[in-house]
């Protein structure tokens, strides 16, 4: 059996096994999810909350942006508290106060250390006791009182209470975030239930339903034994994986001699078909979305220092934090995806040399659909967050609240249909190349398969309904987000870059095929089951912790050798004088490797292991990974691919190398400064606060309002400004390709190209 065939079989087996385990664990998560009670009642039978209250409360939470304002079980925005942790701490303090008054006749805070410790020790087993039976959670009258006091706080905070006005500003919440008292009561019911699941021990277990997350000493929520053990094991697995891959590289890597590069650029003879030409507008939209995304990002960051205003402008009244953040995160995915969609549609006919009938019409129709989706989905989110849509239509047309997949279900389906249309357009253009049995077949097949996976796996985002259990929503949500960014996007990135180098005649097709297949196997070995590292604390069991820790540590293994890939990419750029034409696409590809190591590898592994994530989830260390990995890797790749396509689309246009140089360096320096001056130091300070006082404190207004934190937030300005200059320079470059006319440069090799 040839190496290629062996690798295809290996990949097939790996995918069958990995997805088999992933699906099986899905059924386990479903079976063992925290129970949803029909009623929460006191010992005397008084009903505190009903199931309908909790479920409707979740809909209310989703309508205000869900994950985009604070977080639940650690998933969501870093501004405003984690509502589960916040509720838990407030309820415990209220409960302790009630007991202190009853026993000692004074407030808990006024007790001696010994009396406080005694009360806490007495309270802990009461909190952890699992009183769920026959569809009811039974609580004491005293706990019901404590719940009522926290619910009153929620009513004030999400309404217009004067006592919580300062807190609303700290949390970047607009006044009357939730419109009616009844909705605020239901919202409190939902927060209570997430907090109850976080502190109540599973039957026959010492750990809570969320594996003792969040860290809350008052509730006895501390890291579990398995979290310690699997953290250690995961590091060992990673070291073993790096060792094995190192051995493989030493034995097999670099044995094939590179082919002699062609005398001229093979792509110069590329004929631009009507559908290829039609993709140019995709790249204009990429630039527009990128600029808007940056603007929204700056506004979102500013809300950390002025929670309701933007330099005196009362922006929160029309564009509150949860909306700017929703659009900022959505646009990140949308502009990168648009760049990739455009690239796919551009290179498919280029690969096969075949322009299917009505292909241009399809490309234009898809473009129109994408515009309608962006405008329609964002408008729906605005109406939802401004509480003008009503809860009945929120799920379908408003804001689903699930980070990265939070557009209304109607728009999700529309987007999925759009992605299927993209696959059809790609497939029919690639079909002649896919049918050939030459040495390019495998790499074309892999490229197509990765695009099929990207399209199809968005479908996982349609697997939950309006009232599906929170644990299952998280399970399916991470199918989309994780399997995209840490699975198929990686495969697409490797396949598309290798493919381009093959087309340029710099790499043999066979070597590239073997390398891409092997990389795919390595990436997906950790990538598929690594999904579980997002689910450690979302109402899952120890098995999820074990699998997530072990396999997500393996995701780091290929990144340890990314320097080799970067060096090879650089070598290709030096292989022949005409490669100077592709200098800047190549530079962006090298940046992809750099940020893959730093953003995905270092900052990703920083928060990856169970023990680390236990304390770090939802702190600034999460966006540290998010920004450097999502923009650093996929944003840079999107830009590199766009430049590659523009080279072909505008062969006669003057390339302003100065603008590209400015753009490249300022984007990279800006991103580095954002990470090093703000996200990393704040994240480390928060980590210290969480370790010393409990997770709730690291997210509290008290801690986040400290002057040093605000100064560090301000330190984003230099980095963000430099980054923005890079984006503007790139936009000017793209615009210049159409606006500036000069001598044809398709054959010229200049210092600025």
């Amino acid at each position, binding site marked *: 059996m040839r190496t290629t065939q062996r690798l295809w079989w290996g990949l097939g087996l790996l995918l069958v096994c990995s997805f088999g385990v992933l699906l099986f664990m899905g059924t386990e998560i479903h079976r063992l999810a925290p129970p949803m009670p029909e009623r929460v009642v006191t010992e005397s039978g008084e009903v505190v909350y009903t199931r309908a209250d909790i479920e409707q409360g979740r809909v209310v939470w989703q309508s205000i942006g869900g994950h985009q304002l604070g977080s639940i079980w650690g998933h969501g925005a870093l501004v405003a508290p984690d509502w589960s942790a916040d509720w838990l701490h407030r309820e415990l303090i209220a409960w302790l106060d009630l007991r202190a008054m009853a026993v000692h006749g004074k407030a808990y805070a006024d007790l001696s250390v010994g009396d406080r410790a005694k009360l806490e020790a007495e309270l802990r087993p009461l909190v952890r006791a699992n009183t769920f039976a026959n569809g009811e959670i039974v609580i004491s009258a005293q706990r019901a009182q404590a719940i009522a006091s926290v619910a009153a706080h929620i009513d004030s905070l999400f309404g217009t209470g004067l006592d919580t006005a300062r807190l609303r500003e700290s949390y970047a919440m607009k006044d009357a975030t939730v419109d009616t008292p009844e909705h605020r009561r239901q919202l409190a019911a939902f927060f209570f239930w997430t907090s109850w699941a976080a502190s109540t021990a599973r039957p026959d277990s010492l750990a809570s339903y969320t594996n003792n997350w969040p860290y809350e000493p008052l509730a006895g929520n501390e890291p579990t034994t398995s979290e310690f053990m699997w953290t250690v094991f995961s590091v060992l697995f990673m070291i073993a994986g790096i060792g094995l891959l190192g051995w493989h590289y030493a034995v097999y890597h670099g044995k094939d001699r590179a082919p002699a590069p062609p005398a001229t650029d093979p792509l110069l003879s590329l004929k631009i078909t009507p559908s290829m030409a039609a993709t140019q507008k995709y790249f204009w939209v990429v630039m527009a979305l990128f600029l808007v995304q940056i603007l929204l990002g700056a506004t979102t960051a500013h809300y950390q*220092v002025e929670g309701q205003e933007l*330099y005196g*402008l009362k922006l929160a009244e029309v564009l509150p934090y949860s909306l700017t953040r929703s659009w900022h995160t959505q646009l990140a995915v949308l502009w990168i995806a648009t760049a990739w969609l455009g690239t796919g549609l551009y290179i498919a006919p280029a690969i096969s040399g075949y322009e299917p009938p009505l292909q241009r019409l399809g490309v234009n129709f898809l473009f129109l659909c994408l515009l309608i989706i962006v405008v329609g989905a964002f408008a729906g989110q605005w109406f939802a967050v401004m509480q003008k849509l009503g809860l009945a239509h929120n799920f379908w047309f408003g804001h689903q609240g699930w980070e990265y997949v939070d557009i209304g279900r109607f728009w999700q389906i529309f987007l999925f249909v759009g992605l299927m249309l993209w696959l059809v357009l790609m497939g029919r253009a690639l079909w002649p190349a896919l049918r050939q049995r030459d040495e390019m077949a495998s790499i074309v097949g892999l490229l197509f398969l990765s695009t099929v996976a990207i399209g199809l796996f968005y479908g996982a985002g349609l697997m939950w309904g309006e009232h599906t259990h929170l644990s299952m929503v998280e399970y399916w949500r991470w199918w989309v987000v994780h399997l995209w960014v840490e699975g198929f996007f990686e495969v697409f990135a490797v396949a598309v870059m290798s493919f381009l180098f093959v087309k340029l005649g710099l790499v043999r097709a066979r070597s590239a095929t073997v390398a891409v297949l092997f990389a795919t196997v390595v990436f997906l070995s950790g990538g598929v089951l690594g999904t579980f590292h997002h689910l450690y604390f979302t109402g899952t069991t120890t098995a999820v912790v074990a699998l997530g820790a072990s396999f997500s540590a393996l995701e780091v293994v290929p990144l340890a050798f990314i320097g080799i890939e970067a060096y090879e990419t650089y070598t290709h750029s030096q292989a022949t004088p005409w490669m100077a034409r592709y200098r800047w696409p190549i530079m962006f590809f090298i940046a992809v490797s750099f940020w893959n190591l730093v953003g995905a590898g270092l900052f990703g592994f920083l928060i990856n292991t169970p023990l680390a994530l236990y304390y770090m989830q939802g702190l600034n260390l999460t966006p540290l990974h998010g920004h450097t990995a999502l923009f650093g890797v996929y944003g840079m790749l999107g830009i590199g691919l766009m430049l590659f396509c523009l080279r072909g689309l505008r062969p006669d246009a003057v390339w302003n190398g100065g603008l590209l140089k400015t753009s490249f360096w300022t984007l990279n320096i800006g991103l580095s400064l954002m990470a090093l001056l703000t996200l990393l130091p704040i994240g480390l300070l928060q980590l210290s606060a969480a370790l010393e006082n409990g997770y709730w404190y690291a997210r509290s207004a008290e801690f986040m309002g400290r002057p040093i934190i605000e100064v560090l937030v301000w*330190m984003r300005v*230099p980095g963000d400004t430099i980054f923005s200059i890079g984006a503007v320079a790139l936009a000017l470059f793209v615009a210049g390709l159409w606006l500036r006319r000069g001598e044809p440069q398709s054959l010229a090799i200049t210092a600025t190209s």
Partner: protein
Amino acid sequence: MIEYYPIVKQVHIASVIASGALFAMRGAAGLAGQHWPMSAPLRYLSYSIDSVLLTAALMLMTMLHVYPIAHDWLTVKLALLVLYIVLGSLAMKRAREWRQRFVSYSVALVVYLLMAGIARAHHPLGWLRWWGWA
């Protein structure tokens, strides 16, 4: 946050002085036919100082709740800042003839001083107000 007001103000003033002094020096040397003012290290130094200046300015705005449009003096100062940037660009790079560069450079310095006066007086008339014009 207001605890940091004195130090942020000092950083702002220091970077204003550094930015202006560097521009004055580079502009004068450029007019004298020197090439070093456009060298990469000096350009990057200039960008760095201006980034610090911008950050400190935004922090002061937020701390003191003083905003353009709402406060005339700041509106005028920002309008002059735009003019200063355009003139600076002409003086250092874009103007083709020496005479154009000289005029741009000179007017830029005057604008810089006007901005300093407005900032000191917290009044759109700046130095003129100090000298009893309003």
